[in-house]
């Protein structure tokens, strides 16, 4: 069962991060947070910070999936879980790139 979890973990973390950042943007826009609750930080900085954190989590997962100590004993599961590990990273970078390049709240 841990092998199944190794295969699923990186995309699952992507889905959680993606939904959270989408929700974060929604909350920021609904309550005009800039300059308020978050102590004056610009919404863009909050979003980019969350983006960076999501990327770091994916990088950490890839490191774990490639590490000799924590990786699976099955060659097949190693291959598939590392592939999905890269899927998680690419998906995070790609799908959340709009926090850097698009207008927010309009």
């Amino acid at each position, binding site marked *: 069962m841990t092998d199944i979890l190794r295969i699923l973990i990186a995309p699952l973390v992507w889905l959680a991060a993606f939904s959270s950042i989408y929700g974060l943007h929604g909350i920021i826009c609904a309550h005009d947070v800039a300059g308020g609750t978050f102590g004056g930080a610009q919404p863009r900085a909050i979003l980019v910070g969350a983006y960076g954190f999501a990327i770091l989590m994916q990088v950490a997962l890839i490191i774990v999936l490639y590490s000799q100590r924590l990786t699976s004993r099955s060659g*097949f599961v190693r291959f598939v879980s590392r592939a999905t590990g890269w*899927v998680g990273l690419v*998906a995070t970078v*790609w799908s959340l790139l709009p926090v850097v390049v698009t207008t927010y709240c309009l």
Partner: protein
Amino acid sequence: MKALERHRKLTAIWASESGFRGWFSTVNHNDLGRMFLVTAFFFFLVGGLLAMLIRAQLATPHSAFAGPEIYNQIFTMHGTIMMFLFAIPTFEGLAIYLLPKILGTRDLAFPRLTAYGYWCYAFGGSMLLVAMVFGIAPDGGWFMYPPLSGPIYSPGINTDFWLIGITFVEISAIAAAVEITVSILKYRAPGMSLDKMPIFAWYALITALMILTGFPPLILGSVLLEVERAFGFPFFQVELGGDSLLWQHLFWLFGHPEVYIIFLPAAGVISTVLPVMCRTTLLGYGWIVAAAVALAFLSFGLWVHHMFTTGIPHMGLAFFSAASTLVAVPTGVQIFAWIGTMWKGQPELRLPMLHIMGFFCTFVIGGLTGVMVAVVPFDWQAHDTAFITAHLHYVLFGGFVFPIFAGLYYWLPHFTGQRRFFRLGELAFGLVFVGFHVTFLAMHWVGLLGQRRRIPTYAPEDGWTAINLISSVGSFVLAIGIAMILIDVILHALTANRGLRNPWGAGTLEWAMITPAPAYNFASLPHVTSREPLADDPDLAVRLARGEGYLGTPRQDWRETLTVDVATGRPDMHVIYPANTRLPIIMSAITGVFFLSLLLKFYWTVPIAVVGVALLAWKWVWMLGRTDDLPPLPVGKGVVLETAAMSNRSPGWWGSVFLLTANATFFGSLLFGFAFLWTVAPGWPPPTWFVTSPLELGLGILGAVIGPIAMRRAINSNRRGGGALPGLFVALCGVLAVALACVAIMLRTPSPTEHAYGATLFVLGGYGLFHAALGALMVIFLWARVRRGFVSQTRQAELPIVGLWVSYLSAIGTLVLLAAHLPTLLS
């Protein structure tokens, strides 16, 4: 024992009752798989007839064929039937029939559950058919957006048929998904590690997990909308703190994964059939598994692309546009892996291959238009036009129907044991292919010329007449082609023309048995050492029939199988299945009474039906187990296995894990709904907040904490030879404490009909109360089992199962209490 004697003995043990009475008591996956497939194809024909009515209506401008009220029912039912009553049940039927065979085992994990799932589908589908026959079918479009589908603008019973009937059918899907997941993980032939699983099993596993997490948001939405319609709880009414966008989020959180739930099994069929048609093995098996997993997860991050025109800000839309373009990558990996397989082997244009070519041509076009509408500005023009109708038919017909036809012709010799005599199939394919493209290709263009979806007619001045007429002609050609396939299949089944056991020269296990399949699948279970067991050992079928595998000698009248470790495929438990029983159909009928009572608003029969289901469920589980210990049993090849009753990770435990996964998704969606309304819905904050009571909160949290601890004590105490009863008693107290705290929420919440806040708290409290009641029932059941001697130091399997449910109750109970109490507690 000779092969024939073995076959007779096993058939006597495993066969269903003869005649049509056998339909009502069968728990055999062969029978139920066929029943699912036949019923699903029946609904395909009904949905197809509705499509013919649509095209008859739209063939000419100012059509008087059907008025808008009836036409709205026609297109709503066409979509609803195709999505819920055809596509998903076809996957279920194919998986139920095929999985035990390709996995090298005797049956699925929970045979009675398979039967229950079938009857829920049959009864729920019948409810919708009745609605159609009486002209009171749902008419709000297959996605039923409120406020149009709400109590004010759809006061009739039509919408309730959809909400209640579809929920009933979804029980069937959840049951099948739990079953399929546990079966693929645990019920395989010894030696079949994850990397040796046939590719179809990977796709089916991924699809089943998607059903478990993708359907609950819709079930929640349907429950909330029905409660709004019946009791006035304003979840979707913006004037009272609700939001119609909440429905759209919940619906599409289901709706987008749904189309991948439909596509992935078809991709599994392609991955299985294509290599055989090309006389080679699949290119990039590991890549394809990774791509399917990627596709499954990415599909949960696309849902807002159905809402690009709802006014969500550009950054929000951009996330989903980006994810929607990215999803084409794992799709492309699969497509090119398949084409690479063709280049690797030597493809032959036999009949299943024709349909696979039809799939490629059609699905690629659908995928390309899908990428187009993933681009937000273009979608702003194409949304809600015929362009979308054309796109969705290209991906659904191309990506599901053609592969299913390929699979139908591929496995037809297995279903019937016959060889093809009449050659209608090629002509039928031609008519279907040509008819489909003539119907839908130009439809993209009229969409860009401004023709909307769901309009009953149009004017000659619009300039759409020619294309609509051509489209309607094409649809008749398509219909003739499909009818021809139906006739071809019937003729195949009726003509006695004995075929080869493995006519395609395939390497997977389903071809290593007598065809049509005997009730027991394999006379003895194989030991698997590669992905193509039959290719490695062409005489495998004969050797298994001679009893050279596992479990080759029937013991008493037991229906025996074994389970394996999830990753390695090492055998770990011996399982004895229940025999034929009418319990599933009766349980399904009582469940139907529950839903029917809600639909017809006979509220006094609702609690009777609930009690009926609870009693039947009690009997259902009580029928299992023994009052004496069984020693570990030899299963062949020198392997000795403990029985499932002795394991603390029994099949029932696994089933509970995955059912709780679906349940947790339902609860998570409810929390999401709460958070969404709170932060985004206009009309918040509510006029009054729930006033916290530290006593109630403390009582509930205390109960939530001691419940799992007490269960753990009971499990450990039982394992050491002591009694489980003290622990069970304390657990029951904990559960009741949570129940009381939830009742308090329901009683003290601000009026649920005046603001969505009160309504949400009421539902949250009700959810907690339901699970507390369920937990209490389970603990009392365990107490009775212990008292009657079903539970012993070795026969410990039932305790951890209840432990799971009590732990779940603790988690959700705590969250419900915090959601209710925190706002006023913190301020």
